[in-house]
């Protein structure tokens, strides 16, 4: 995971598998930004090749804390698999997510 912040904009690239073992690491890194005000976060998940509810939990928690501080979280580069995971849990309607490729509405 790579994170870079400048002028209240946080960009990050998440890679690999997000499961019960790796999610805590991701959570910890994101938590360092959770109290910042008006943060615009954009996380690129193009290189995430596996994710389950533990990963969803991390992104939901991040989304909640950033939102409550007046910021915004966008997740982009979601594969069809990842997009489906957000959609079947109903999180796709709540969070700002963008799938890979055209027509990924």
């Amino acid at each position, binding site marked *: 995971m790579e994170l870079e912040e400048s002028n209240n904009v946080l960009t990050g690239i998440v890679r690999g*598998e997000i*499961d*019960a*073992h790796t999610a*805590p690491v991701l959570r910890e890194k994101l938590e360092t930004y959770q109290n910042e005000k008006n943060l615009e976060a954009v996380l690129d998940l193009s290189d995430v090749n*596996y994710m*389950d*509810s*533990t990963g*969803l*939990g991390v992104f939901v928690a991040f989304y909640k804390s950033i939102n409550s501080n007046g910021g915004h979280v966008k997740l982009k580069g979601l594969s069809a*698999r990842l997009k489906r*995971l957000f959609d*079947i*849990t109903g999180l796709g309607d709540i969070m700002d997510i963008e799938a890979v490729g055209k027509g990924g509405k």
Partner: protein
Amino acid sequence: MRPFDYVEMRVPAKSQYVGVARLTISGLASRIGFSYDDIEDLKIASSEAVTNAVQHAYRDEEDGEVVIGCALYKDKIEIMVADHGQSFDFEETKTKVGPYHDQEEITFLREGGLGLYLIETLMDEVKVHHQEGVTVFMTKYVGGEQVEEDVETISS
């Protein structure tokens, strides 16, 4: 001869073994011809079950173990995940698990939030047995949604 091949894994109740169980189940599923998407579903559902079991087993006992049993049939896979270390008699345990309802007795599974919901959504059948620990029993059929490819083998 029993009509299925049986594979059992016993792993320490530690999160680093969730991925090992997931990859093993993925490999087993590919042997019976599941599609790419179905295998991805199985990986998520089994990870959810093993993650739950790891957390429960670890809470009870620091060096606890999780047992994962997989029965491979021609047209389906049955996966049993128990958060207590004892091996099970797969067929016997299978008769004990039953359908469950949204009652308090399974709130322990809901506490993690989306895990059980995903298992229910991604698998074809899910049963839970709660006695001396928790056992989750889940089934997925090959070509559960699309049957066309299997026309040959089905016409008997």
